[in-house]
């Protein structure tokens, strides 16, 4: 189901958290709201979920205006950064919570809860308390809990923010696969560009209460609208006054047209990749090369080379 947010304004005292924001999410997509902390992305998500009220503007979920509809009647799934597990309830009762509130028959609840626990690989933990689970397991439980009520849309607020790097990566892949199976419209907030690039169909870059750009990960990476988007999404380096991607810097050992003379200041290998730093007039760019490229060029600190942007 689609989400349309129109002209959303939200202030906290003098601070403008959202400044006339329009957002449109197509049905069945996995969309990332990406941006630096304090940029307004969580606030926008909470307004969509009904946990925060916008000062002005409107939100439509599946075409229906949500004005005056409190969070408990929006039928959205919400996953919080710190899991928000019901500490006094077992994993089973946590997942069953929304269904019990809706007074579904016990047998139906049981069937649905075990389906979901299987989906999130927690079926053997049904009787445990959340405190007996790891962070990653808790977040999977929270996701099952949110999905149990068959929400119109699934909203995730920095869902992997509190987890270790390894677990984070694993859950990220797992969320992508889950989404491909379930096709529920999903919006997730993150400040991790790698996470957004890897998982989402579409990325919305939010900064200082405004949307900077919306597009597929490739569009944003290859055709950023402005320097902010370019530098926020992926590595950048400066050649003269221009921002470019470090892997878009070509290096030659002999003079070429449009090439800029440079001196190698440092060559550093990290696995398969090599990072080379240069000094040119007015800036100190760096380039990302494969090991083969670096060997072929025979780069050493002090070497004279010519550099040229490839795009």
């Amino acid at each position, binding site marked *: 189901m689609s989400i349309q947010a129109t002209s959303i304004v939200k202030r906290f005292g003098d601070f403008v958290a959202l400044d006339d924001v329009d957002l449109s999410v197509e049905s069945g997509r996995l969309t990332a709201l990406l941006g630096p902390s304090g940029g307004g992305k969580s606030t926008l998500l909470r307004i969509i979920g009904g946990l925060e009220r916008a000062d002005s503007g409107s939100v439509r979920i599946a075409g229906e205006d949500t004005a005056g509809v*409190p*969070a408990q009647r*929006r039928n959205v*799934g919400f996953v*919080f950064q710190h899991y*928000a597990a019901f500490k006094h309830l077992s994993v089973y009762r946590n997942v069953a*919570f929304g269904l019990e509130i809706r007074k579904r028959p016990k047998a139906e609840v049981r069937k649905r809860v075990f389906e979901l626990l299987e989906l999130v690989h927690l079926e053997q933990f049904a009787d445990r308390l959340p405190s007996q689970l790891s962070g990653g397991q808790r977040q999977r439980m929270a996701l099952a809990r949110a999905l149990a009520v068959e929400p119109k849309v699934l909203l995730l607020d920095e869902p992997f923010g509190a987890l270790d790097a390894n677990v984070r990566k694993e859950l990220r892949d797992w969320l992508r696969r889950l989404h491909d199976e379930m096709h529920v419209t999903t919006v997730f907030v993150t400040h991790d560009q790698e996470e957004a690039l890897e998982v989402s169909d579409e990325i919305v870059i939010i900064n200082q209460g405004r949307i900077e750009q919306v597009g597929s990960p490739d569009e944003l990476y290859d055709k950023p609208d402005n320097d902010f988007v370019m530098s926020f999404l992926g590595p950048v380096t400066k050649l003269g006054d221009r921002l470019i991607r470090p892997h878009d810097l070509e290096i030659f050992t002999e003079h070429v047209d449009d090439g800029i003379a440079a001196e190698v200041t440092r060559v550093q290998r990290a696995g398969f990749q090599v990072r080379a730093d240069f000094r040119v007039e007015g800036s100190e760019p760096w380039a990302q090369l494969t090991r083969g490229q670096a060997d072929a060029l025979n780069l050493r600190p002090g070497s004279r080379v010519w550099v040229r942007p490839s795009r």
Partner: protein
Amino acid sequence: MCSSVRSRAVVSVSRRAKYGLRAIALTYVFVLVVIPMGVITTRTLRQGLGAFWDAISSPQAVSAFRLTATVTVWAVVLNTIFGVGVAILLTRYRFPGKRLMSALIDIPIAISPIVVGLALVLVYGPYNGWFGKSLHSAGFEVIYAVPGMVLATVFVSLPLVLREVAPVLEEEGLDQEQAARVLGASAWQRFRRITIPTIKWALSYGIVLSIARSIGEFGAIKVVSGDISGTGQTQTATLLVDERIEQLEPGAYQVSMVLIAVAVLAIILVSLIRPKEHS
């Protein structure tokens, strides 16, 4: 080498200090608590079980215990409702005057109970109190009656439930309640299914403290009750103990013993509750 020698020296000094502190603390508790309690217990027991039963089962004693129980139940119920309500208000909402309100709630525990009693008489007294006169002419007695005694007891134990519950609500934050809300729970369902289980142990502890405080209240009760002795009057158990001591009548130890037993029971309850808080 040098550092290991020094660290051993530190350990031995700190061990000596540890035993020293332990001895001081034990002596302190012994002199202040154990000896006086022990004296009351032995005096009660020395007079025999028959005397014990007579002292606590006389019509006057039964009436006093009953009145203490009535006042305590009312005060604890009121303080529980008020304590949980205000704890939610203070931790979940922002409003002007919040800090002032928080400070005002702690005042009753700082003020001498006898002053509290006097203040209540000045406000609710039947002859020259502020509202007391109109309440009296409407046929509703506050001072020298049970409502005033409940009022005084509520006043002196006002923050006990609140101060136990509020930190737990603060620490748990809003996440669980918001999660329940998005899952479709109404305000009442959130309160019953999330808030109450979250504060369960803190609330029990607060209630036990309120019970103990209410049973033992003397000063404020003495002023507002008028201490009218005899069945059906306004004499609570603590006032009865006071009367029997003043008049050199027998039975003060035995009644005190019952009050001590209830307090000890409350403390045992608390110690059963406390460890569960951390599990």
